[in-house]
């Protein structure tokens, strides 16, 4: 029933062949089609600009005050491409294999191969847009190795790669806006999807300044609304990131794939107290020179410099002698949690581990460390107020990325015809774990180089009734949203949306975070509905609906998180294996390594909404591996 529409033939030729088979829309007819693009991060901005260049009528939406502020802006490390400029043996095939293996073989071969193919076009496109990538003295592009990759294939612009790529896409989008090819709606949040005659035909939004509920019609809808990492309350995501658009689409019939695949990043600045609103990522590169440790004794409260060498536990070096401090993200994260759960964590909350540069400074000198990490040390000092040159840094894992998302086929179309999903919002390319520097690649591949072709095929194969915002379906959704808002405002309870969010986050982090087990997940499945129930009885919102209302905005997002949390828990519960970012404590080898079950779980779990009170229905899309052998990851 789930048809991924993967073209036949050798993997290298699939995309070419597919592009030939896609139907085209005559150039003069393109302006007869209107596309709504929700989200203007890397995926959305690149899609909106590219579609406008082709001649489609495009309207784009973001809740930010400008497309340039999308969460993509905060990506630091870089973007991968198989250019092989460094001549170190990279190839499309190797990037394909690394990405697939990094995802623990839970992604589609054909999609990942296409991604690797398109990676090169992305770099060309961005350079042409004026993205100032790092260069060598000879004037050619520089590369670095990132996230443990064996080849140097990562392109970067200082520690601000995401910013520069987004500004590139933003400039292309701005050009189209200036030429009136794209109508840009800022500070407008999508509340729901409108499906008419089985096709996605529009959205309903709330104007965040005036509070007005508005309808927008289109012939196709693209969701590029990013990830839902903020389900954990604390994450490295921007504060406004939320699940609303994709969750609402799910409720309207789009299937949700692998919701439990979330990534926890090991090197973030630890929580300092209840006031904490977000967690800041510290570049993974710090692990190249820093040594990670905690005291051997529980509750050892001495300052780190007074703890003698023999009373320190360099647990990663001890457990994984060959990879040591460079063990992969999921393993480092889990190990940190283990020692903290054991009562040996540091920082005021007990949830932190040391990342110590003392040896590195002795070995390389302070100058060299400063050259390598100066700006990161500065940022750390700004936030924590301690000098990492003299006192070891403290780090702790945090939610960072969500591999799960709406299910899409090879054309990036969801199970609702006309609803396309791009970037982090879809599930397609990263399997159970995303490698560093590959999210930017995927977002841009989707937006620049996939959707412009595949959406034409959808238009060419379908006919569209003329509709407008007066259609009864729009009125119905508008009314439902207005009623929902009024209901929220009328509760007048005692708890703020943030308090509910924090509570939900805690339950999710403890039971569906770095380590998951059946009893925890089941407990969470009881707790979440209780929080949700209380939410609808005890919520307090100040101000009015028809005004800029930050409390209401937050409440609307939290309400959807509270419902969505359940599918995430169901998915984690039913995936009875450990793979990538999903670690089920029951499924591990005696030495604590994740135990994958390829026999029973080499598939995508795809969830269908079946009504508010029912358990969602789990479908599967089997993953067929014709080109790679499923290997076990080992980092001993």
């Amino acid at each position: 029933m789930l048809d991924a529409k993967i073209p036949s033939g050798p993997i290298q030729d699939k995309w070419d062949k597919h592009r030939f088979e896609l139907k085209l829309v005559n150039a003069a007819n393109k302006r007869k089609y209107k596309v709504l693009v929700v989200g203007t991060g890397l995926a959305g901005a690149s899609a909106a600009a590219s579609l406008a260049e082709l001649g489609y009528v495009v309207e784009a939406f973001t809740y930010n005050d400008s497309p340039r502020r999308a969460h993509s802006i905060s990506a630091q490390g870089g973007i991968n491409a198989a250019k092989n400029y460094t001549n170190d043996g990279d190839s499309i095939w190797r990037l394909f294999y690394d990405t697939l293996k990094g995802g623990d073989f839970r992604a589609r071969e054909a999609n990942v191969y296409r991604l690797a193919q398109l990676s090169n076009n992305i770099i060309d496109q961005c350079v042409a847009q004026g993205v100032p990538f790092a260069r060598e003295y000879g004037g050619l592009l520089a590369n670095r190795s990132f996230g443990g990759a064996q080849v140097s294939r990562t392109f970067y612009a200082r520690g601000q790669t995401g910013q520069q790529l987004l500004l590139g896409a933003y400039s292309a989008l701005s050009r189209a806006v200036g030429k009136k090819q794209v109508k840009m709606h800022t500070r407008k949040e999508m509340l729901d999807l409108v499906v008419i005659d089985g096709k996605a035909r529009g959205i309903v939004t709330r104007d965040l300044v005036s509070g007005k509920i508005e309808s927008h019609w289109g012939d196709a809808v693209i969701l590029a609304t990013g990830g839902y990492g903020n389900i954990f309350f604390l994450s490295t995501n921007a504060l406004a990131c939320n699940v609303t658009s994709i969750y609402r689409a799910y409720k309207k019939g789009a299937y949700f794939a692998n919701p439990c695949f979330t990534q926890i990043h090991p090197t973030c600045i630890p929580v300092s107290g209840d006031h904490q609103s977000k967690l800041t990522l510290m570049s993974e590169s710090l692990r190249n020179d820093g040594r990670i440790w905690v005291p051997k004794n529980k509750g050892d409260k001495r300052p780190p410099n007074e703890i003698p060498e023999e009373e320190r536990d360099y647990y990663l070096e001890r457990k994984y002698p060959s990879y040591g401090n460079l063990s992969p993200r999921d393993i480092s994260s889990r190990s940190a949690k283990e020692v903290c759960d054991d009562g040996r964590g540091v920082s005021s909350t007990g949830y932190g581990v040391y990342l110590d540069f003392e040896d590195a400074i002795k070995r390389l000198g302070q100058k060299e460390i400063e050259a390598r990490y100066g700006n990161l040390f500065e940022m750390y000092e700004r936030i924590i107020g301690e000098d990492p040159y003299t006192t070891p840094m403290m780090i702790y894992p945090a939610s960072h990325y969500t591999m799960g998302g709406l299910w899409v086929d090879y054309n990036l179309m969801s199970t609702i015809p006309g609803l396309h999903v791009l970037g982090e919002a879809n599930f397609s390319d990263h399997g159970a774990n995303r490698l560093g520097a590959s999210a930017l690649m995927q977002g841009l591949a989707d937006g620049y180089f996939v959707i412009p072709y595949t959406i034409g095929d959808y238009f060419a194969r379908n006919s569209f009734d003329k509709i407008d915002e007066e259609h009864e379906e729009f009125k119905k959704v508008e009314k439902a949203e207005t009623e929902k808002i009024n209901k929220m405002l009328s509760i007048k309870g005692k708890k703020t949306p943030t308090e509910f969010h924090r509570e939900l986050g805690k339950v999710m982090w403890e039971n569906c975070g770095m380590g998951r087990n059946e009893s925890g997940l089941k407990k969470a499945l009881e707790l979440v509905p209780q929080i949700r129930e209380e939410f609808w009885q005890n919520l307090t919102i100040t101000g009015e609906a028809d005004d800029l209302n930050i409390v209401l905005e937050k409440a609307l997002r939290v309400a959807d998180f509270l419902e969505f949390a359940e599918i995430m828990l169901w998915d984690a519960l039913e995936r009875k294996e450990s793979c990538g970012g999903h670690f089920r404590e029951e499924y591990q080898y005696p030495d604590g390594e994740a135990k994958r079950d390829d026999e029973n779980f080499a598939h995508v779990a795809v969830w269908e909404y079946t009504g508010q009170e029912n358990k969602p229905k789990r479908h599967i899309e089997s993953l067929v591996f014709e080109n790679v052998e499923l290997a076990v990851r080992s980092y001993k």
Partner: protein
Amino acid sequence: MKLTLYIWRQKNAKSKGFMEKHQLDGVSEDMSFLEMLDVLNEQLIHEGKEPVAFDHDCREGICGTCSLTINGTPHGPEAATTCCQLHMRKFKDGDSIYIEPFRAKAFPVIKDLISDRSALDRIIQAGGFISVNTNQAQDANALPVSKEKADLAMDAAACIGCGACIAACPNASSMLFVAAKVSQFALLPQGQPERKRRVLSMVEQMHQEGFGACTNIYECEAVCPKQVSVRFIAQMNREYMGAYMKNEE
């Protein structure tokens, strides 16, 4: 610690604003400035009062959304730091803190501490791009760019578009913002074909938006969280003069 906050409150774009006084106790020095405001807001909601609306998103100093003028300085007292990265340890127990929105005629206040900075987007729309359609690009290494130029272009491109430069300038001049973009592209070979048109149309839009004239006082550079240098303004002046004199349109 205990603080006295004076915060700009304004119902909407049309109403008149005023400074409102709040006492806030129990502020920890580990909080970021925005987390301190979060605490205040939670308190206000519990008291049934409307919380203070302010703009923010990434809280990592990169998205450029946060925009508070703290004690008369956009983004507050710490150099090269956005207010979302500013931490309370920069303040003392008993301090009075004045918090206002970014002000300029071109940045009308929408509510409380939120101002409308879409004028900056319109300047980019007028010419802050290189006209290349998707898939029109040649190989990324076809045009070498000297490392020095690429680095300088990156210095300019580091702008996060927060508008602090404008908020700090007594003339509300947006020269630093515009110059950063103009210079970035003028330094790169890809930016050459549209070099003259770009600077002329971006400057024209800047005038239409009602930003003031630069008087070279460099307050913009001093408050810029990304330390974008005023040398780019000099470069833009050069670009503009050249383009103006040779303009054939």
